[in-house]
């Protein structure tokens, strides 16, 4: 016992001596779903942040400080996300990269805002930037941008006459579907029905049968791939001849596995995949990523988050200060877009990322796809 207390004292003394040394780092938080349904996306974000931190530290860090990465697992649930936010703020991070889902980003937003910690997420729900938080910087393009693209494609390019809009009840999917419906109507398109399904309920035949009675040309599904693949498969099984267009969250290899041979000819709208990014900076980063982790980045979303982190660090270096408020002001008023991995980076006053480019992929049953339409 006596020995143990001596050891504890020594440890405490060591911590006191070591603390000032540790304080001399720039703490960067990562809030992401490291476990749970979206684990591969969350791990992709963590891997990317660690790689970028390594590269910056090798060049001497940010304004002479080394970056220290602190990861918190939000499991893709709002409750864990709220706890993560408190935890990361208590640990003294200056910025937080993530999370992957809108739900988790939203649950953590207010805590970061109150603490003046910058947050950059790829969540696409429009509500994220509607609260007037200067701390929030969206590094992806909002649902409304995807909705306009999807509506234009359906009404003006494909000339569909009878459109069905379908979604689940999540923040992301419901928002995307409502925005798409509004955009279709603005272009003079005809939405014959707007239906909702319960995520994970597996049996979509009743709702699809009632959709069949409306004789649609196309079913636009905003929701996640785990439902999208089954909806596509059951649509074909019911003999509904309409095209299927899925929103960005359908872009996952499991979509094709679930739909099986019915996947052939389905369309999925998304931002361009990492492997076709035309920028030099993207090519080198993806090559470095492959060299370090032995695989491609999980998806474009992880790279979007990396761009968010790069933008914040660029702002701090340009200001020669770690002040988060100044960094946010700098990013809200960029004269020239910064070069990014996923394209030029510029932010609107509300923290939305400016621009937005989307593609329509035509899926084949073997999981490969071809680009149908790029804008």
């Amino acid at each position, binding site marked *: 016992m006596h020995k143990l207390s001596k050891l504890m004292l020594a440890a405490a003394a060591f911590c006191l001596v070591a603390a000032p040394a540790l304080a001399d780092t720039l703490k960067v938080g990562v809030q992401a779903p490291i476990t749970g349904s979206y684990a591969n996306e969350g791990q992709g974000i963590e891997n990317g942040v660690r790689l970028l931190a390594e590269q910056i530290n090798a060049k001497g860090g940010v304004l002479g400080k080394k970056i220290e990465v602190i990861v918190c697992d939000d499991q893709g649930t709002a409750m864990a996300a709220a706890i993560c936010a408190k935890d990361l703020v208590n640990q003294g991070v200056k910025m937080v990269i993530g999370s992957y889902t809108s739900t988790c980003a939203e649950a953590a937003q207010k805590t970061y805002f109150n603490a003046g910690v910058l947050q950059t997420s790829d969540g696409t729900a429009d509500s994220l930037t509607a609260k007037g938080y200067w701390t929030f910087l969206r590094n992806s393009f909002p649902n409304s941008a995807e909705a306009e693209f999807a509506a234009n494609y359906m009404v003006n390019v494909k000339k569909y006459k009878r459109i069905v809009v379908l979604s689940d009840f999540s923040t992301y999917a419901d928002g995307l579907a409502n925005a798409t419906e509004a955009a279709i109507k603005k272009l003079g398109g005809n939405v014959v029905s707007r239906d*909702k399904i319960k995520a*994970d309920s597996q049996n979509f*035949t*009743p709702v699809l*049968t009632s959709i069949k009675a409306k004789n649609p040309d196309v079913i636009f599904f905003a929701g996640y791939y785990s439902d999208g693949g*089954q909806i596509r498969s059951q649509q*074909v099984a019911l003999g509904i001849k309409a095209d299927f267009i899925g929103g960005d969250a359908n872009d996952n290899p499991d979509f094709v596995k679930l739909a099986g041979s019915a996947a052939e000819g389905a369309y999925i709208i998304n931002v361009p995949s990492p492997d076709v990014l035309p920028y030099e900076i993207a090519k080198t980063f993806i090559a470095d990523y492959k060299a370090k982790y032995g695989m491609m980045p999980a998806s474009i979303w992880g790279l979007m988050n990396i761009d968010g982190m790069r933008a914040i660090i660029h702002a701090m270096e340009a200001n020669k200060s770690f002040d988060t408020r100044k960094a946010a002001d700098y990013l809200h008023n960029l004269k020239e877009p910064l070069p990014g991995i996923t394209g030029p980076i510029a932010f609107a006053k509300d923290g939305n990322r400016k621009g937005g480019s989307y593609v329509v992929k035509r899926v084949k049953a073997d999981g490969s796809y071809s680009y149908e339409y790029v804008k």
Partner: protein
Amino acid sequence: MDIFLQQLANGLTIGSMFALVALGYTMVYGVMRLINFAHGDMVAASAFVGLTIYTQVMGQATSLPAVIAIFLLSAVCMACIGIILERVAYRPLREAPRLSAVVSALGASLVIQNGIMLIWGPRMRIFPELVPQVYWDFGGVVISLIQVIILVLSLVLMVALYLFVEKTRIGAAIRASSIDQDAARLMGINVNRIIALIFIIGSSLGAVGGLFIGLYYRGITFNMGWQYGLYAFVAAIIGGIGNIPGAMLGGMLLGLFNAFIAGYVSSTWADAFTFILLIVILIVRPTGILGERVAEKV
């Protein structure tokens, strides 16, 4: 009209899965007066077991004999797990108050569900296309091969079970045990063996139901058992718990009811209406549609 017929086909398909699972509930209750809440998770586990047998044992063969072998092997595996479940979770509590057995059943449900998660992981696993996607179009009503297989095979299994219970000596022993276990024991029936048999039959029928879910929907998750278990439980109560034809009828009715509510009223409210139906049935006919009136023995 064709929309109505299509919903009918949808409802019968999902209804026959409910019915297969409901049989497991109803048989166990009939003999032991116990709701086996772990049954739904057994059904989920069978889908994962079947998938593993397909990849590891069958070497991903998709021929007809291979598919039949997958069904048989999964049923055998689940029957073994069913016997173990009864030995570990229920037999020690045979004489205990009923609440203890119910709590034990809920515990078993959690153990199986988390066991699936630990072995196969929390992510959705996806079944291969073991049944070719063939469809027949009857003037707007589309029936697929898998739907026909599910419906026919379920009916065959249910009729076989009914005949087994009604026409054979063992069936008579099962019926005797469900009326009065002590009297059955005095007549020389080994009740422990009968209960083990009930678990074997219930688990293997549940295994077939689980494989149907995997083949029909393709995506399986570790926590899907609760959802199917709950539906099948409601189906068993609607038909009259403890009554074998009642479970079949209840499953079919629930499937149809669900399809028509989701198709004509709202898919969002389908679950709520299902439980409203349950409450109405319990108020109007507490013993279920085919359940007999149990006279109180004085």
